């Protein structure tokens, strides 16, 4: 049952061969049995989940349900959920129970999905390996010595181990796509503004975007459809109709123009990973796609520009955590300054503090023009490169990450080498474009991800290409050893 597609599960529910309570109990039991080795779930929502499943069953009995009615899923612990702890992976919010629910969680609830729990993540989504979580790192189900990627590593590991058919994620610099690649699942980050950020704990507001993580492109399309749309509560939400993401998913790839940025196929890319990605591109070509080399001349500056823009926005966003109204508070302060400094110093982990300081530095008097303004100008150049490229091609393809998942502890002492593991994904966030990762083979028994980048609001084409690729291959159906029994 764990490896069924969303459509198959939904059909069984609609035909009442299976109830949502049974399905939810089945996945809750898998989490309880299998997650002790992974640490992908921070908080279980068992009681409320079974109640929601009962409600879904009532809908299904009346023949009222939609495709997501009664389907269990997990939410990244960055989304506020009323009545259930929302920690953002931080000691700062270890005791925080949000007084309201994030819009996108609500949308999925309204579609009938059943929240089984909240997934582990890098603290405040700052990390590429899940090792910065206050709740301990997540293990990669393909090799427990390795990281699942980050920051949505809990969601990726959980879907890969089939602990839930779907999980939400967020992506500020690659945090959906890179863990999806490392864990061998499908993940899509839509265009900036497509999914509401209301109730999603902010890291870098001009880059943060929520998306869907699932086994296949079709499952991800169904989930993303429910999450997308205008939200008046998010001032950066885009007021424009949402495409039907499934309508064109079966369209032939004949004539689809795919660009390969030459800057993404260089020495920085592991040669074995490159082979797998090239094979995937060949498969797309054999299905009728037209492949050509393109250039994104400034893309090599995306990591440098990102590590100004993101920390600057993070230092502003995280200034709200002051120990006064909610969150962690230090004991016995000497004075007001000590109260703030120790509440924040003790409540935040090292990587978060590093980024807050980095942000405070680049925004401080005398440095603003040299760093912050410069980074915003470089951001413009990177975006213009993409805009120009999309005059010639419909899709851009590359590896999602320069290597397969690395070993736990391998990069924790060297922040810069950790940052460079997002070298192929970060430009997409700076430009605000949609991007996805689909599994395209294995190197050393570890999954490899193919990154597909689309033009603004062209999620349906991305999902079309992903789906067509998955019609030709079965990488997305593979299950890590140890997680393949009922």
């Amino acid at each position: 049952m764990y490896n069924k597609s969303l459509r198959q599960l939904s059909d069984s529910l609609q035909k009442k061969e299976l109830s949502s309570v049974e399905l939810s109990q089945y996945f809750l039991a898998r989490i309880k049995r299998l997650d002790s080795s992974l640490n992908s779930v921070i908080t279980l929502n068992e009681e409320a989940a079974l109640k929601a499943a009962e409600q879904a069953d009532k809908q299904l009995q009346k023949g009222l349900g939609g495709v997501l009615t009664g389907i269990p899923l997990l939410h990244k612990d960055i989304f506020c959920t009323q009545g259930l702890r929302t920690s953002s992976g931080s000691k700062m919010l270890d005791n925080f129970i949000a007084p309201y629910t994030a819009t996108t969680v609500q949308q999925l609830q309204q579609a009938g999905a059943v929240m089984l729990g909240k997934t582990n993540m890098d603290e405040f989504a700052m990390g590429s390996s899940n090792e910065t979580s206050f709740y301990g790192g997540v293990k990669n189900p393909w090799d427990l010595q390795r990281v699942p990627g980050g920051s949505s590593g809990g969601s990726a590991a959980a879907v890969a181990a089939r602990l839930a058919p779907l999980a939400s994620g967020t992506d500020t610099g690659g945090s959906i796509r890179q863990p999806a690649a490392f864990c061998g699942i499908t993940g899509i980050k839509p265009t900036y503004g497509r999914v509401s950020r209301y109730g999603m704990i902010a890291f870098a507001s001009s880059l943060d975007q929520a998306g869907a993580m699932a086994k296949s492109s079709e499952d991800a399309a169904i989930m993303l459809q429910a999450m997308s749309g205008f939200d008046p509560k998010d001032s950066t939400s885009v007021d424009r109709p949402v495409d039907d993401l499934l309508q064109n998913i079966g369209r032939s790839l004949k004539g689809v123009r795919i660009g390969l940025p030459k800057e993404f196929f260089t020495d920085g890319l592991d040669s074995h990973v490159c082979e797998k990605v090239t094979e995937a591109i060949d498969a797309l070509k054999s299905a009728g796609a037209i492949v050509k080399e393109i250039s994104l001349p400034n893309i090599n500056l995306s990591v440098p520009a990102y590590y100004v823009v993101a920390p600057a926005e993070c230092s502003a966003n995280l200034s709200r955590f002051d120990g006064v109204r909610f969150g962690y508070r230090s004991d016995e302060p000497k004075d007001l300054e000590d109260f703030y400094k120790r509440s924040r110093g003790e409540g935040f982990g090292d990587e978060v503090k590093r980024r807050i300081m980095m942000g405070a530095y680049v925004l401080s008097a005398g440095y603003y023009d040299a760093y912050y303004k410069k980074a915003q100008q470089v951001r413009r150049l990177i975006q213009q490169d993409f805009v120009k490229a999309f005059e010639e091609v419909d899709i851009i393809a590359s590896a999602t990450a320069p290597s397969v998942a690395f070993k736990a502890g391998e990069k924790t002492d060297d922040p810069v080498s950790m940052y460079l593991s997002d070298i192929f994904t970060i430009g997409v966030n700076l430009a605000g474009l949609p991007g996805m990762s689909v599994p395209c083979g294995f190197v050393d028994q570890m999954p490899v991800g193919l990154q597909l980048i689309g033009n603004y609001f062209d999620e349906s084409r991305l999902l079309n290409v992903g789906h067509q690729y998955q019609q030709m291959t079965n990488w997305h159906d593979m299950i890590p050893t140890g997680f393949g029994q009922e």
Partner: protein
Amino acid sequence: MPIQSEDVLKIAHLARLAVSDEQVKSYASDLSNIMNLVEQMNEVDTSGVEPMAHPLDQSQRLRADEVTEKNQRELLQENALDTEDGLFLVPKVID
């Protein structure tokens, strides 16, 4: 540009972060490495390029000036460590 221990102390103060003496050195070295990465931006001439603050170049949407939120003070204070008469209580920090 290398970041010195004094710089770390200054930034940590600006950001209101307590940093232990042992940590100052490692932050200085980490932040210096990150700044080296960041300074690669200087490779490209950006004179005349308009800074980009928003990926879709949109400005903040305005809404009608009407009250839409209801008063939920009690609900919103449920996460507070200590309150009294609707006020947040903090430890005494001024003598």
